[in-house]
């Protein structure tokens, strides 16, 4: 698709739309003039990024627009994108002023980019590294850019850029080594166990900072050896990166460098180091230890997990609910690192969530806290979520189109007609939005079309037909055989190419909650454009609905494309109007869309949800466990009614609740919203072939 460039007045109009929130009331005229001489492709790229930037901060968008011609004169497409992203990154981290300064310093940016070969950037290695850590991990551990490398036991923080080694490759390996070592801190007891209190041990030294530096260095020695037992390749790579141990750590390497060394041995050795005068030697990969942060996060997690395990055990039969005193408590069996519970010799199966919590406690403490095993006792069951009194204040006075039951896991029962569902029309959005997205993604769309044409074109040669273009030799031989044997010969002796009847109806459910604001929402809309291209090529029946809402009395469903609608201008306008609104009460949306799907005459029915994480609603009722359980239940109901669900979640960080949430459904997690548009058509292809 080639299109003419936009003229200044057209550009001005689009800029005004994107930047209307700018405080500086400057006219976009001058900027539009500057953009006029760019190619249409460049213009669309600039407008796109101006829009993205303006969603964070209108002034940044304004600046991107005005500097774009200069930037594009010096940077290629990827460079331009990197420049804007660097600005947005600075905005997220340090605010508007920093972002503007970075963007204005185009010389600096170009120079840094020219030198960049040596430096490695966190943003470039994040996805690969996050998966690497997830591969190693016993439990979810998020990655995030931070001022200095350390971990709080739930997130590993790494600097945005590393340039301390001479080549980019080495700096990348330094990222990996640092991340692996920080992961090992959380995995192999650096922050203490039930038996070893680190805080108390460190409190002995008045110069806490020095003690922490020594502690970090000694732990690097110990953990490398511990890693070596299970992951010798990784340990060797770390060793090569750090070079020979510095003089000041030679003795430590002798004493602590053993695969079975425990943190208590580090503490013993630490005392000797602190008795001397020396400073801890610097290691390139050791990271720092922020003990306060780690202990705080860990304590909160322990409390949460203890609670989960205890409640799970309480609800299991016999335990806690039993009459009389002298109840036996469950026995914990810890064979081969696998945690098993039993009560009076009978094995207890915990739900996966509780099992994971118990495993995590075990990793932190080396044992299960005794509180876990104390029965909550009859009546002691205290759900943390309470029915919000305030929420009904928001009750709408309109009559809902439908009411749906909702599952209350605490009652183990449905709340009847609890959710009020409204089908709400979307106001038409930018009529050119779809065209613009298509322009930006011509290559990808061409590829999608080609792939899906192939699918559709999967004609089958159907044998044993009464008529057709070719003789079916197998059938002919068989008929001759039948005739000779005196059996009634088959009259259907031809083969015919037929188009495969897919008989499939697909429903896409799009999260329009407030949390999707920004990139996720952009990605969702772009995905819809890609999906429509794919599905139009394929000819499957499909529908798209958005959902959001505000408490149980206002659950809104936004039809974007109904099953019986064509992919026309009105639908395109509605795709553009998909935007971030309020909350995510997922169960009711699933129930409603399941019902719509059931009315479809297809043989197979598929529900695909696109969302950015946990179900959530105003007030704390739907947040947390309740929402997870209701959503799970709704997916189960759908399954029972013959609707297959597939859930696509954009969530960079530990998605440990997903297996529970999506129970009966299949799902995938994307760590980066930007991948959604390209992935979603692919996912659909996998689901339906």
């Amino acid at each position: 698709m080639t299109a003419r460039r936009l003229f200044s007045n057209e550009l001005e109009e689009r800029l005004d739309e994107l930047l209307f929130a700018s405080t500086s009331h400057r006219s976009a005229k001058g900027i539009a003039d500057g953009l006029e001489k760019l190619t249409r492709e460049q213009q669309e790229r600039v407008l796109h990024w101006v829009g993205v930037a303006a969603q964070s901060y209108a002034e940044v968008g304004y600046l991107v627009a005005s500097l774009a011609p200069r930037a594009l004169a010096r940077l290629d497409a990827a460079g331009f994108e990197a420049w804007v992203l660097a600005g947005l990154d600075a905005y997220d981290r340090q605010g508007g002023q920093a972002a503007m300064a970075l963007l204005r310093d185009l010389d600096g940016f170009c120079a840094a980019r020219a030198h960049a070969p040596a430096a490695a950037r966190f943003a470039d290695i994040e996805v690969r590294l996050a998966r690497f850590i997830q591969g190693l991990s016993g439990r979810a551990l998020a990655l995030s850019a931070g001022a200095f490398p350390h971990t709080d036991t739930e997130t590993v923080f790494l600097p945005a850029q590393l340039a301390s080694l001479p080549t980019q490759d080495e700096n990348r390996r330094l990222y990996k080594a640092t991340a692996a070592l920080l992961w090992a801190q959380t995995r192999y007891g650096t922050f203490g166990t039930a038996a070893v209190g680190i805080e108390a041990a460190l409190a002995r030294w008045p110069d806490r900072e020095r003690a922490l530096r020594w502690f970090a260095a000694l732990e690097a020695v110990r953990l490398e050896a511990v890693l070596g037992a299970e992951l010798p390749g990784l340990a060797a790579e770390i060793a090569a990166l750090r070079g020979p141990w510095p003089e000041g750590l030679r003795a430590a390497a002798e004493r602590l460098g053993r695969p079975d060394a425990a943190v208590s041995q580090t503490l013993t050795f630490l005392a000797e180091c602190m008795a001397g005068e020396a400073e801890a030697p610097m290691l390139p990969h050791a990271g720092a230890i922020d003990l306060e942060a780690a202990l705080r996060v860990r304590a909160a997690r322990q409390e949460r997990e203890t609670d989960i395990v205890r409640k799970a055990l309480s609800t299991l039969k016999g335990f806690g609910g039993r009459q009389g005193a002298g109840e036996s408590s469950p026995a914990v069996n810890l064979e081969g690192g696998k945690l098993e519970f039993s009560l009076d010799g009978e094995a207890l199966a915990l739900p996966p969530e509780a099992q994971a919590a118990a495993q995590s406690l075990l990793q932190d403490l080396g044992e299960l806290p005794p509180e876990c095993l104390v029965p909550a006792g009859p009546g002691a069951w205290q759900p943390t979520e309470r029915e919000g009194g305030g929420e009904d204040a928001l009750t709408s006075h309109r009559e809902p189109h439908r009411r749906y039951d909702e599952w209350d896991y605490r009652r183990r029962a449905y709340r009847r007609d609890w959710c009020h569902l409204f089908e709400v029309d979307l106001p038409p959005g930018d009529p050119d939005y779809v065209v613009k997205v298509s322009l930006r993604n011509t290559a990808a769309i061409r590829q999608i079309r080609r792939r899906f044409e192939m699918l559709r074109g999967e004609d089958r040669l159907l044998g044993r037909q009464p008529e057709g273009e070719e003789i079916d030799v197998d059938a002919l031989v068989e008929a001759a055989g039948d005739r000779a044997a005196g059996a009634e010969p088959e009259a259907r002796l031809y083969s015919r190419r037929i188009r495969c009847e897919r008989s499939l109806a697909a429903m896409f459910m799009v999260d329009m909650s407030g949390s999707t604001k920004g990139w996720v929402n952009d990605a969702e809309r772009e995905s819809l454009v890609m999906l429509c291209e794919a599905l139009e090529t394929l000819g499957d029946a499909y529908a798209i609905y958005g959902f959001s809402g505000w408490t149980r009395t206002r659950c809104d469903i936004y039809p974007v494309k109904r099953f019986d609608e064509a992919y026309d201008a009105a639908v395109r306008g509605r795709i553009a109007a998909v935007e971030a609104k309020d909350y995510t009460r997922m169960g009711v949306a699933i129930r409603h869309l399941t019902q719509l799907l059931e009315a479809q005459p297809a043989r197979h029915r598929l529900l695909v949800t696109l969302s950015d994480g946990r179900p959530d609603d105003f007030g704390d009722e739907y947040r947390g466990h309740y929402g997870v359980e209701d959503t799970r239940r709704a997916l189960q109901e759908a399954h029972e009614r013959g609707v297959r669900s597939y859930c696509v979640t954009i969530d960079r960080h530990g998605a440990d609740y997903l297996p529970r949430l999506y129970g009966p459904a299949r799902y995938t997690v994307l760590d980066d919203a930007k991948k959604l548009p390209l992935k979603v058509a692919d996912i659909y292809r996998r689901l339906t072939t």
Partner: protein
Amino acid sequence: MSGNPRTLAPQLQTVEIEPYYQPVRDEVALFESAHRRRLPVLLKGPTGCGKTRFVEYMAWRLKRPLVTVACHDDLTTADLVGRYLIVGNETVWVDGPLAAAVRAGAICYLDEIVEARKDTTVVIHPLADNRRMLAIDKRGELLAAPDDFMLVISYNPGYQSVLKEIKPSTRQRFVALEFDYPEAAVEAGIVATEGGVDAETARRLVKLAELTRNLKGAGLDEGASTRLLVHAAQLIADGVEPAAACTAAIARALSDDPEMTGTLDDLVRAVF
């Protein structure tokens, strides 16, 4: 029906030499019991976790011939049951693998049953309930299965496609045995034996498998199977450098996505 055409039955294979199979749970006893009670069996589990090997082993143990059919979407009823052919001037009936297995009181293993056409799956229904009959419509023949005959099907529940689910009406006729990758030490034993590598190499391969299985659902559809570990081990035993063997036999076999392959390479390097 004029005369009685000659019947050709395909030669059935018997498993003469004990196949190596490492029992994981109580599957051997369950299978034997199902055989005694003439119940059909469904093996559920991810690919490459030992289902096929298990059936071979059980055929040897029970001293029954084994007929294996890999199902695909063009598999017709005639392909299973049989058809008339002309040989010279004579018409002969050739039993399909299923009919042959029924006649011989063999174990018939239909691998990856969901791949078969739905109308084909239906012919096994009367065999899989207490009728234990196979109807050969062409010949007007109703074959009663002897006591020794046993029907076994396999199914991988990890498939994501909505078009590839096993129908409840089929599933509910079978005793289901669940298969999964065995515990680390057991799996390492299998890899060492099958792949011909030392215990330490086998242990590391299993460790690598564990790391990739942590990525299931986060970029990978499935982690490395026991089969892939055995492949890598065989390459190593043949002199290939371990990391290169794992890259070829495991990492590249799991994903084409460049970013994912990068991560898998990192994991390979972490272990070797």
